[in-house]
């Protein structure tokens, strides 16, 4: 068996170190090594975006990246969205605007939304659609996901001015 390698990755601010095989995918590191199962595996073929997490602030598909590549990096997952049990405005938006049905795509969708709103706090509808083009949803028809992200954009702007 080829040698393992020690990796150390910050996930939602907590440092997780482990000895891993190089072929371990980041999504398995997150779900199995760190025990954070909010990040989903949908297609496992780089197409659906259910496994989207932020690596150093940018959305990536964690099924298409080895854990060893993220060594020393910072990962944000859906579990890191809430603050002290308070829903993040993005979560609130998905809740109030019915941005989900089965919820399978939702964690990845919310991470893409978060990256978008950090870079562009007031996206128009087209920009929102473009930002989530890599996240497939089989249930909602996207309309309410757009509304959820628009809700979050507004709410976050209020949060800043308040």
């Amino acid at each position, binding site marked *: 068996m080829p040698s393992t390698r020690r990796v150390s990755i910050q996930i939602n601010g907590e440092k997780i170190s482990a000895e891993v095989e190089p072929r371990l995918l980041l999504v398995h590191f997150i779900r199995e090594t760190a025990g954070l199962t909010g990040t989903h595996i949908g297609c496992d073929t780089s197409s659906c975006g259910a496994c989207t997490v932020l690596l150093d602030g940018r959305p990536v598909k964690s099924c298409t990246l080895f854990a*060893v590549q993220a060594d020393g990096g910072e990962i944000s997952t859906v579990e890191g969205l809430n603050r002290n049990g308070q829903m993040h405005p993005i979560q609130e938006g998905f809740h109030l605007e019915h941005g989900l049905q089965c919820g399978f795509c939702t964690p990845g969708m919310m991470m893409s939304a978060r990256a978008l709103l950090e870079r562009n706090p007031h996206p128009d509808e087209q920009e929102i659609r473009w930002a989530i083009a890599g996240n497939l949803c089989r249930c909602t028809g996207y309309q309410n996901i757009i509304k959820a992200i628009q809700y979050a954009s507004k709410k976050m702007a209020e949060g800043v001015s308040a």
Partner: protein
Amino acid sequence: MIPASFEYLRPGSLNEAIAMLSEHGDEAKILSGGQSLIPMMKFRLSRPACLIDINRIPNLDYIKEEDGYLKIGGLTRETALEHSDLIRSRFPILHDTSFVIADVQVRNLATVGGNLAHGDPANDHPATMLALDAEIVATGPQGERIIPIKDFFVAIFTTALRPEEILTEIRIPMNGSRRGGAYLKVERKVGDYATAGVAVQVTLNDRGDVQRAGIGLTNVGPTPIKATGAEGALAGKQLTDEGIAEAARRASEEAQPSSDLRGPAEYKTALVQELTRRALYRAWERAKK
């Protein structure tokens, strides 16, 4: 899906990476964005014994103007091209191209160097680089060598890079002030590979004649195609509706599509003709500005 086991190496410099490539030979593969390689490894279509991860090598990620060239570092991500003001203002054709590749998540990792080095006729940058007459800088144990893009794509998934070479830079000549280009692609859905794509770059002289025209075709043959017949039909003449129609017709004759899930060959041939026509008009618009 779990790829086969491999040894993982992470060089901290270009020299170290080249030494590792020389040592491991055919057994090794370079890992850059991983957005083509990792899916292939998961399907076990590719089972390298050793991966050399070049992502931590410094100074390979840049977009700059120098010595009459636009220079793009081998590790530059698609996202960087998409958001670069220099690219948007001076090379809108490159912005067009990055913008229609995959999706945000893939573009955050995928590199321009990997897009070319993969040698996939379905990738979008090859046609654009053929239209732009780019040069590839390959760095190996003997140092750097320049490969003109027209000699780069040898066969399907095969390029002129040697196993111990790394694609370190792409150089695009910036001659002529009245330049314009465009990349147009038809895809089944956002983020899909092209059913067909056409890249066009024209340079006009003072009289408005075409000084040079470059035309590249995506996913209509075993390799990316440089439509030299269509280019020749435009060179040295004024751009006219008739000239554009003739070049578009020739480009469609140079395409060698096969029928597949994305459509019948006849449809793809017709797409090449129409996309060449539209790309030429858009390139012309941009060159006149």
